[in-house]
């Protein structure tokens, strides 16, 4: 342990007040001595990585992930359709799994990596073009939820069967009845991805 230099501000350990020259040294100390993540966040603060961008924000304990992504981050592709847990329209991909943003408390999602339909589209995932081509939307309200669910499927299973696509999308409701188009669009996107991968 060294005395802090006058030229740099002190890096004080919040647990034992030990001082360090650099922030990196402080982090190493906290992890090895106090067995915790480098620095605790103030109560109610979470960090979400959404579509590759880190957002640190304060949330109320009762806020859902839907509220945070839709109302705070302004990503409107997360849709509220059934209201709670029945339709899949608010599906986002969290650490590789499709989850319902309306049923997840934001405060429990600290440190998570999240993808929404907007991120999938910005990354030019072939699902978007195949959905357009096959008219896999009518009113379009449920479409982003289908896209995110399908993307999560293709991430873990790049060559799904029709049955596997139907099973994966079986929890997404569409009142307009676009259902027959989804397996066609997803299988075509999978094909495109495989072709791109083999180039």
């Amino acid at each position, binding site marked *: 342990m060294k005395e802090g230099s006058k030229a740099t501000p002190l890096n004080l350990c919040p647990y034992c007040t030990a001082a360090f020259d650099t922030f990196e040294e402080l982090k190493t100390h906290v992890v090895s001595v106090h067995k915790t993540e480098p620095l605790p966040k103030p109560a109610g603060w979470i960090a979400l990585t959404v579509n590759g961008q880190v957002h640190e924000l304060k949330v109320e304990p*009762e806020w859902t992930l839907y509220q945070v992504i*839709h*109302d705070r981050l*302004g*990503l*409107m*592709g*997360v*849709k*509220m*359709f*059934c*209201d*709670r*847990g*029945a*339709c899949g*329209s608010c599906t986002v991909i969290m650490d590789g799994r499709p989850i319902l943003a309306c049923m997840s408390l934001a405060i429990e999602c600290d440190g998570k990596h999240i993808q*929404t*339909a*907007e991120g*999938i*589209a*910005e990354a030019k995932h072939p*699902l*978007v073009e195949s*959905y*357009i*081509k096959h*008219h*896999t*939307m*009518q*009113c*379009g*309200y*449920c*479409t*982003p939820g289908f*896209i995110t669910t399908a993307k999560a499927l293709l991430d873990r299973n790049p060559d799904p069967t029709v049955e596997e696509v*139907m*099973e994966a*999308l*079986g*929890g*997404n*409701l*569409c*009142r*307009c*009845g*676009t*259902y*027959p*188009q*989804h397996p066609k669009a997803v299988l075509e996107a999978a094909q495109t991805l495989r072709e791109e991968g083999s180039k």
Partner: protein
Amino acid sequence: MTAKKLGPYQTLKAEGTYKIGADKPTIAFNRIGKRGVRRYDGYAKASGKALYTRDVLLPGMLYSKVLASPFAHAKILRLDTRQAEAYPGVRTVLRFDDPAIHGRELTGSIAGPTRMAPQSAGWAMLPVKTILGDEAIFEGQMVGVAVCADSEQIAAEALKRVKIEWEQRPILLDQEEALQPEAPILIPGADSNQIIDERELTTKGDVEQGFQEAEQIVEFTARRHAHLWAGAELPCVIANWSGDKLEMWVHEQQPYLSKLILSEQLNIPMNKIQTHSLYQGCSFGERCNPSNWHQNGINVLAVLLARKAGRPVKLVLNRAETFYGESGDVMASHFKVGAKQDGTITAVQMKSVFANYMCTTGVEHLIDNTRISHLRCEGITAHVNKPPAWWCRCEQLPNVFCQTLIFDHVADALGLDPTQVALRNDGCEGHDPSYLSEFKRRHGFPDRDSLRECIEAGRKAIGWEEKWHAPGTRRLPNGRMHGMAFTWSHDWDDTRGTGSAAVMIQNDGSVSIIAQHSDVGVNPWTAYMQIVADELGVPYEDIEINPFDLNVGFALMSPDGSCNLGSNGFVVKKAAQKAKQMLLDLASEKFDRPADALDVKESVVFEKARPENRMPLKEVVKMATPMLNAVGIWTEPPVLAWAWHTHGLWGQALETGRPRMCRQANFIEIEVDTETGEVFVTKVVNVNDVGQAISPETVEGQMYGGTYMGLGRALTEEMVWDPSTGVLLNRNLLDYKYATLLDYPEAECIYLETGLGHGPYGSTGIGENTATMIPGLLGPAVYNAIGQRVDDFPITPHKVLKALGKIKE
């Protein structure tokens, strides 16, 4: 020529009033009718970037919640809102006794030939028509108080702190019981629970004579229970005041009409209301204003709350609160039908008792479709303590329900193939109702319809010849009983609607369609752009539309009645033709040739006789600009033309009926598990004559999409009330079950193009038919499978087992 002798649509009053007749194309189709045209709204919807009203967030916006009655019939005796008003974060409370809302009724003064008469609107069946009153006549009704707070959570918490003393009143849930003499009267001071409806009796010919001519008489009863829209986007509205100007975001099919009603109810001049209608997450009649009771109610509440709070107010209902309506086909019916041995139906007599609203009487498709000479249809409607009933994709539900069951019962009693009975009675080939035969002659249509083609295509696709059998006679190797059924009707276009739009060629040669239009998912804008592309001679990709703002002045016909395209196709076609004429007039000077010697193709203007004499459209319009304030002396007028079109009037294109030439046929194949009572749909074939498809994928989308809604209505969708309290038990999308991807197979959708439609290029509408036709079809299919009738919809496993005698109640 005396105008009063002619119907409004046979008089050419102005350029916009169209003589409904065979519309032959004058151009070669490049985009119209072609597959693979990029869907206009596709990227916005797939990428999550499409903005819906529910998504709108304004700075400083407040959130509102309205109290929902916990009782099916009750009056507020005492209302204490003090604790709610004091709750932190609550900004405004609007009580029913506030002078701003007290006594305000939903009616407005919307009567007249082009508007809906109050008695036919969605609130007509409500005995208490106040927007926010002190009396609830169904569980879940908005009543008593609305609060406005910093968040939805705070608003909901505040409502919990409202103290109410209720007086509960007797309830009635069954429409037939409501008409019994001993039933309590639901409306204080009324003689009975019957709702007066001028359509109570429809007759044609003399049914007694028809029964005498008959060789067989068939009698049966049927019931249909309530279902509803359950659209994707929750009902919502945002209101914001700035001085005397009001800005609104509305989730509605008919935003212009909503503006009109709002102005009539709250005395706000229409030109002070700026309305935005963004993408719409479904509608199916629910967000049809003024039809829907809640839609206009929440508009008025949001406007009053925003005025009181001095801030923007958003009012969104939650999913439970959206179960505030029911379908207008809740009916108990008795039928007596006379027929000859060859399948000729000689007389139909029907009597139905409806709950809260009679969408249609049940007989109208028999009038429009068939040559049955003797008809008598009684429809009585009774008040019950259930939500207001209304059009539910679509109002024809009772009509096709009755037609399907009547035809199937007759074919079965006579031992005939139902497709033959349909052809025997169809009003085609010179046997149409008299008005239609005359209409066809006068307007250039051949004297035929397309039922035979539809039936032939459908029979082949489903394998009718090989597979159809007598009821209850085919058990499959998997142990289930096999069933098949068929039904048919005419096309669906309501033959009504008025729209206007402008087509403008910008300085760079790109083209804008200027008009507000609500999109409920039927891909209309792609179709309009296809039409403009072909009529104007520019690439589809060079055309844009920005339909979200009502303040542009032009508004296209709202998406209802399956007559979106029927009206608006003509509007954009005419506007494009006029813009093209302006363009050619402009080019005439530059080419030094008469305008009629020139043409446009792929945005190149050329001389028809010497195509090498050409100029890009962009060069022609370079100096034609609407920017008249720009520096320089520009003398050329902007290339901007607008047009309007009226296509019929509320379903009556002719003095006596609708021009129905296109037909449709629907076939189904099912399996019934006689141990569990479950019905498994294995194949659906929909055949529609659409006259001329503009966007083939869109046509098919309505056909397969509607199948899922139709099957849901037939088998699983039902609003279930607790019989002792009148509380709705399934106010969510887990317990109100509609189809998922896994429930039914993909329908085979075949469309025919005979040019027999009265819409643009011989087309006709297709938005509502399939979802409306399919439900009734399951009755005949289940009968064909098990040999027992279950004409009680939805057809649940319980009812199937009861029909099989396996359970008692």
